[in-house]
């Protein structure tokens, strides 16, 4: 491992000479991955392991009349066939979701979405398990499905969750934030009010590796070892203890290398529970790995928000207020992953980067005959939707006022001196210098030249669009008193042990799915203790080996777990100071720290390195009163606030006037996530998120026909950008540290996914201005753009 000294891209780093700590270093994960020596879920093979496969419903809404498993059980390689009736006996037919609803593990009464789990086959190999699915006879009595969320609350809508006592409609929740009366008053007296329905269609995170589990129940010791594709192993352990009734100390969850998560692997899916049941029933380990169609059709979707947006302003462009009502389609079970008190996640950050007089939002969640989900795909708990709404509304306002969209934003930004800034829906933004980021982005893009080029092209009938988006993220949930997942406070633990020879192991509660935690968390410890990153092992993903915490999603690893790791390293440093005092026979308060070493003030030659202190702590040095042996520490970090990274994005598109095909020619992304731990990794996170944005804005959608058939259930239909659809990204950054974070760092992982779709759609709409288009909904596919050019733009759902 070599540290590349990279001050240019890390101006916050400080010291001129920085041989260790933050900066661009190569990833510790890479050597195994480039050799095919990663260890993903489906690579796990245990002695006697069986394979499970799920029979899924072919229709969206139907009464289950009967299941006949006789022929499947007669298959020579089939060990067990589990149905909903079997699970009812075990009290496992329904499982609690992360939204305090329940979700059917296997259908017992009726099917509620196409692709829902109906039966589980356990067989000697994966081919036999699939064969046996064909041998199960199921009789359904098909019911009319509810597909259109806009009709979910109609009096004649079919009631999807009629198994819930007393339920007579499809309303899940109503939730609001902000002051309605105050907002209405501002709107009533505003010069200009613009309204627009803005739809964020249903998409899917589609990690390259699908979901899967290997369950290994040891009946002798009563211990369950469950290997899972999970982003939150500790939360899963607790939930499995509650769901399956197995004592929590007898459950070990192991999250191996994960082939991408993107929020898809936060919740507990029926397949995980079925693997456990299969292992208990068969007495052997059971592996379940879903295929791509199953992943797209039955695991957590993202978005599906129908937003009625309104923005109020003065005629010279001072934005005054925002209000919106959202209709949220949650599918058949409310399994949305978000903090308990936030049924619409953090949507109330929809006030964006602007200093408003008032704001109000309300969200109504409804059931439909679709797969559950909602919060996934780098959304930071609905921030994708919030940012998309405000950035579309600001653009529409700019058009109405005939102002440049960049200038309108600059005019309304929250100013640097206003931070910490309390917005009108209860968030306190930690820090920001929005104008600086916006100006840098415009400079990198050559914004004025682009506008000139556009004017020339427009005169020639060519369609070029420039889209601007400026976003404020909210990541790092979060303070325990405000945020919990099914009762578990959103704090994260860290344990650090320095071995006698000065090498260290840090155990963390979050779980990388490619974000480079094994590298960056070592860099944080390296910076705090002066131990080279290559001498620090980062352990994660095994609940028997790591401290409790809530996992990786919502870009919360750096804000919460990163804080925990910095603090645990400082705790070790303080303990090392006491031991060094004993070793140097001086009072600890007379010691001074330089990177990796305590020394006597005024006598730099008298000092002890961390390695020497570690050996002393484990050896025979007489330890001071109250100091125990070993050089280690633990912390649980409860952050005082979330972090609010931000970014200024500019997108340039060209549209083929003959076909409606959109080509993203340039994309300039300026991000500010405070202190930058590893610029190389940050850049990679941004690139990936920008590609998500191109996918969502131009290609991706999960649609349903009137019968409730899922039309986006494979990679033949659910289109994801390849190297051909994305440009060579242009990135820049500013550094505005989070004042409350131990190292000033903010989350970054989801920023680009959050910030890029509005930039791209704003560019498309800008290109289509000659056709009088003021809005079109995603995805901006050639057919839909063509329709918009003909004045027939329509919502996707």
């Amino acid at each position, binding site marked *: *491992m*070599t540290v*590349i000294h*990279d001050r*240019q*891209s890390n101006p916050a780093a400080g010291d001129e000479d920085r041989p260790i700590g933050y900066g*661009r270093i*190569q*990833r510790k*994960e*890479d*050597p*195994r*991955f*480039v*050799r*095919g*020596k*990663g260890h*993903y879920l*489906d*690579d796990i*093979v245990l002695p006697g392991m069986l394979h499970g496969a799920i029979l899924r419903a072919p229709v969206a809404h139907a009464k289950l009349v009967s299941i006949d498993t006789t022929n499947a059980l007669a298959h020579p390689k089939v060990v067990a066939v589990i149905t909903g009736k079997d699970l009812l006996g075990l009290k496992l037919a329904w499982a609690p979701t992360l939204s305090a609803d329940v979700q059917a593990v296997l259908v017992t009464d009726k099917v509620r979405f196409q692709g829902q789990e109906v039966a589980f086959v356990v067989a000697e190999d*994966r*081919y036999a398990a699939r064969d046996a699915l064909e041998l199960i006879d199921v009789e359904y009595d098909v019911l009319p499905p509810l597909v259109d969320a806009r009709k979910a609350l109609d009096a004649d809508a079919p009631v999807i969750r009629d198994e819930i006592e007393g339920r007579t409609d499809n309303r899940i929740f109503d939730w609001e934030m902000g002051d309605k009366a105050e907002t209405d008053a501002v709107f009533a007296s505003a010069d200009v009010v613009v309204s627009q329905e803005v739809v964020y269609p249903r998409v899917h995170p*589609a*990690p*390259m*590796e*699908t979901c899967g589990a290997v369950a290994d129940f040891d009946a002798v010791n009563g211990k369950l070892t469950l290997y899972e594709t999970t982003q939150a192993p500790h939360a899963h352990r607790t939930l499995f203890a509650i769901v399956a009734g197995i004592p929590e100390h007898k459950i070990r969850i192991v999250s191996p290398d*994960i*082939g*991408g998560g*993107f929020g898809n692997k936060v919740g507990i899916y029926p397949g995980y529970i079925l693997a456990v049941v299969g292992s208990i029933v068969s007495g052997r380990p059971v592996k379940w790995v879903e*295929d*791509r*169609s199953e992943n797209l059709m039955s695991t957590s979707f993202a978005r599906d928000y129908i937003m009625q947006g309104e923005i109020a302003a003065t005629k010279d462009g001072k934005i005054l207020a925002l209000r919106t009502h959202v209709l949220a389609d949650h599918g058949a079970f409310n399994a949305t992953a978000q903090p308990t008190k936030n049924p619409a996640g953090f949507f109330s950050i929809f006030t964006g980067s602007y200093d408003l007089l008032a704001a109000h939002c309300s969200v109504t969640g409804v059931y439909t005959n679709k797969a559950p989900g909602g919060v996934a795909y780098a959304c930071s708990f609905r921030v994708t939707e919030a940012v998309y709404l405000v950035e579309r509304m600001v653009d529409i306002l700019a058009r109405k006022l005939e102002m440049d969209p960049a200038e309108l934003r600059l005019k309304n930004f929250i100013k640097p001196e206003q931070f910490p800034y309390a917005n009108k829906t209860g968030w306190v933004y930690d820090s920001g210098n929005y104008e600086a980021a916006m100006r840098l982005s415009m400079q990198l893009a050559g914004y004025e030249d682009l506008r000139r080029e556009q004017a020339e092209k427009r005169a020639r009938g060519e369609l070029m669009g420039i889209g601007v988006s400026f976003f404020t993220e909210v990541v790092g949930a979060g303070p325990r008193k405000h945020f919990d997942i099914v009762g578990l406070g959103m704090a994260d633990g860290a344990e650090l042990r320095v071995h006698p020879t000065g090498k260290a192991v840090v155990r963390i509660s979050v779980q990388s*799915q*490619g*974000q480079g935690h094994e590298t960056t968390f070592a860099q944080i410890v390296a910076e705090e203790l002066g131990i080279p990153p290559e001498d620090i092992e980062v352990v994660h993903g095994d609940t028997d080996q790591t401290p409790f915490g809530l996992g990786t999603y919502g870009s919360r690893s750096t804000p919460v777990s990163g804080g925990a790791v910095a603090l645990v390293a400082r705790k070790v440093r303080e303990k090392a100071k006491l031991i060094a005092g004993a070793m140097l026979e001086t009072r600890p308060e007379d010691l001074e720290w330089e990177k990796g070493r305590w020394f006597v003030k005024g006598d730099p030659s008298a000092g002890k390195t961390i390695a020497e202190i570690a050996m002393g702590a484990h050896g025979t040095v007489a330890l001071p009163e109250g100091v125990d042996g070993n050089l280690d520490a633990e912390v649980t970090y409860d952050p005082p606030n979330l972090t609010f990274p931000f970014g200024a994005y500019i997108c340039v598109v060209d549209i083929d006037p003959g076909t409606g095909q959109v080509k993203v020619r340039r994309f300039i992304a300026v991000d500010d996530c405070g202190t930058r731990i590893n610029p*190389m*990794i940050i*850049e*990679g996170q*941004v*690139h*990936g*998120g920008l*590609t*998500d944005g191109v996918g969502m804005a131009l290609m991706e959608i999960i649609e349903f026909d009137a019968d409730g058939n899922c039309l986006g259930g*494979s*990679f*033949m239909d659910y289109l*994801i950008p*390849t*190297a*051909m659809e*994305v440009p*060579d*990204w242009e990135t820049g950054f500013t550094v505005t540290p989070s004042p409350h974070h131990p190292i000033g760092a903010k989350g970054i992982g989801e920023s680009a996914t959050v910030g890029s779709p509005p930039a791209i759609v704003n560019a498309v709409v800008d290109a289509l201005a000659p056709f009088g288009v003021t809005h079109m909904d995603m995805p901006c596919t050639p057919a839909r753009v063509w329709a918009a050019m003909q004045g027939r733009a329509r919502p996707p759902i």
Partner: protein
Amino acid sequence: MQISMTVNGTDVTSEIEPRVLLVHYIREVLGLTGTHWGCDTSNCGTCVVLMDGQPVKSCTVLAAMAAGHDIRTVEGLATGGTLDPVQQGFMEEHGLQCGFCTPGMMLTARALLDKNPHPDDAEVRQAISGQICRCTGYATIVRSVQWAAAHPAAPGLDDAPATDHSAGTGLDGTDLDGTDTAVPDVAAEIEDTEVKA
């Protein structure tokens, strides 16, 4: 049925069902799990291996169809403990994150560079267009391949030293896995690498 083929330079013979996909044969029978499976419609390319030097999606080839052919997987990309320049390029230029698409991407890159040692960026993008990556946004993958093109000096297949067979054993006791898990000394290379702003 009985099939024989060469995998990473070693002859293997197995008794299999005719319907077994090459990806499952490689992963489950031979135990070479670097080759991945990411979709069911032949779109994603995480299963790409080289068959007689050509990239193929091993989920769309029956193991029986590979009989008599020469297969190279990611485990056979490094030779004798020395990384292929493509592998090194992916580490240098951060061409991977979760690592799931990486084996397929690298094998396609190797096949491209064998045919066209100095591709332009558009040619690299075209070459990997049958493969999906969800993490990187592709730009660093393009840079990784270009790094490999610019550093052909690292030993390639032809001048590779004898394969180290210590890492894995396939059917019939044959050694299949030519990799060496020792961390390479890439430090020297990095020292001379200009840092991208």
